[in-house]
């Protein structure tokens, strides 16, 4: 099963590679990983999308907690949560395709953020599935470049992790 793990860790050089190294050394899978400082600049928040059985996830959480620089760890998929990913996508847009791409972008609540006479660059946010769906809706030959941030996630309700 897919899990979204949120990690608060000391915002120090090397902390990121400790987490990444843990996943590779113990053979855990990483689908995506994002990290940036929080409102407290001494703390970074990392979101890791991973897959594994219940036993493996228990170990992942315990091993993460064991890292000296990790302050808190939570599996967000254990409760209600919101997941978002940012995608920047550049596509060929000429002739009749140009209007079609614009319409599709509107349907997916995307925004066109750069335009040339031959291309559009769009920004979309949403769950990973929504972004996948957008790519699939396009003719594969149209896509020039895709950049995805990986999932960021937060729990629902008034409490922090």
């Amino acid at each position, binding site marked *: 099963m897919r899990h979204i793990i949120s990690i608060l860790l000391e915002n120090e050089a*090397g902390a990121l590679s400790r987490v990444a190294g843990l996943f590779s*050394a113990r053979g855990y899978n990483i689908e995506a990983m994002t990290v940036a400082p929080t409102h407290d600049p001494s703390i970074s928040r990392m979101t890791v999308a991973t897959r594994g059985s219940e036993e493996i996830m228990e170990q992942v959480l*315990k091993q993460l907690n064991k890292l*000296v620089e990790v302050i808190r760890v939570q599996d967000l998929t254990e409760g209600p949560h919101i997941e978002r990913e940012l995608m920047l996508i550049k596509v060929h847009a000429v002739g009749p395709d140009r209007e079609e791409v614009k319409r599709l972008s509107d349907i997916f609540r995307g925004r066109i953020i750069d335009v040339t006479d031959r291309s559009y660059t769009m920004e979309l946010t949403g769950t990973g599935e929504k972004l996948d769906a957008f790519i699939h809706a396009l003719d594969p030959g149209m896509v020039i470049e895709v950049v995805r941030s990986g999932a960021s996630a937060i729990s629902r309700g008034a409490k922090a992790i």
Partner: protein
Amino acid sequence: MTSPTTTQDRPSPELETEELTGAGIVVRALRDEGVEYVFGYPGGAVLYIYDELAQQDAVRHILVRHEQAAVHAADAYSRVTGKVGVALVTSGPGATNAVTGIATAYMDSVPMVVITGQVPVALIGNDAFQEVDTVGITRPCTKHNFLVKDVRDLASTLKTAFYLAATGRPGPVLVDIPRDITSHKTHYHYPEKISLRSYKPTVKGHPGQVRKAMQLITSAQRPMFYTGGGIVLGNASAELRKLVRTLGAPITHTLMGLGAYPASDRQFLGMLGMHGTYEANMAVQHCDVLVALGARFDDRVTGNLAKFAPHARIVHVDVDPSSISKNVRVDVPVVGDLQQVLLEMNQVLAESDQRNDPQAMQAWWAQIEEWRQRGCLHYKQDDRIIKPQFVVQKLYELTGGNAIVTSDVGQHQMWAAQFYGFDRPRRWVNSGGLGTMGFGLPAAMGAQVAEPDSTVVCITGDGSIQMNIQELSTCLQHHLPVKVACLNNHYLGMVRQWQEFFYENRYAMSYVDALPDFVKLAEAYGHIGLRADTPADVEPVIREALRLKDRMVFMDFQVDPQENVYPMVPAGAALSEMILV
């Protein structure tokens, strides 16, 4: 990776009067930490530190012949004393040579601080002479590591390193110090206490869980204790003895746990696992409640996991939550310091009159004694060729069981574990987790430094001893009268045994041709060499070695090259599927 304090945490300079260089701070911090011995090897990046070391007497330095040995010696010093061991090496090859030692200590959770030199801050990343990414290389084999990039962070980083090494599940912590930091000056302030928001090890066991555990243990028909290195590391031996004796239950140890419970006591069934005793393995397989204390269900202990202790409900106490339910699902987990939790368990026991059903216990012991009658460690004595087991037995007898025994890795290690009965903890020093050949001799040095008046015996083999033989030179320089007992079978014995059992007797590259004459070699290093060729030589050789109290003695026992370690659970088999003699 960088230092744990921020600028705001640094003490204001006006509070302190004394200004020291980084090197001065290192040595002062070691003194303030109560460090008596540092094991190390100098080099360009640590010369300022060595210069400071030479100008004082409080911290003494043992000069090894290879950085790996420095770390093993510091490791063994820690295992014998319970203090944090300290090693000091230079950058680049100094650090990479130390890695095997660090990984060894990491696998066995030994508290240690390793200080490595680094190229000057401005050169980091430039492929400078003797530069290597030490924190990068050691990240997966340390509990934590630091690169100090500002001399004002040095003292607090060292304090944090000692704190991390010794608390929670102990382990090696590395502090990488660039050369220029050791010459920069700042006011010295060594923090009294360290508190880290991200690191709060659990000490006390959860009272509800402890009660639940005792409830399960005392209601067992066939209880079995299985304890590991955590008891030794956690100084929980006295509490363990009290608990096990009160309950009258059988107990087995892992390789790392030997000595926690007296081997000479009737309730002790010997070691368990791949080369464990028949009675210990059978008792684990047939018990209904298994009490795992400071052990981690290693594959060499459990055999086939799916068939491990099939009838047992399991209590597991460990300071490291990630050890619990890692390999085996546990019914009652308790996270906490072993000494503390065992204290709590003994309290619960004292306050309640619930005990195991005496009839069931009697039947259980009758069954165990039947298994014990099998005499699984029996070997056939020979009057012409020396049996390696016989050497270890004689060593045990003639040292009165009081020696500190270190070992390398292989058959001799297993025979040492099986035949030297340890009645006290911190007397058996071996590389259990990583299985590092070359550990034994430097470990014996560290043990001898820790206890200059004790007999220290390194039980080794002709393969392992050659992996750090150069340390014979260190033994001479620092007057370390360790006794090496080499069970010389001209083979990499454990490899040969596996080839005999599992590779149809094809002894691929396990015969060691062209062995040195160890007697002459010892003499060349300025020591005494003794050789035993027949069983009749064994006792006189050991007696002579022990008589030469102040000399390092190398005993070369020419033993049966074909002898195997029994019992043996083949890799992947259930614990009860033992190959017996």
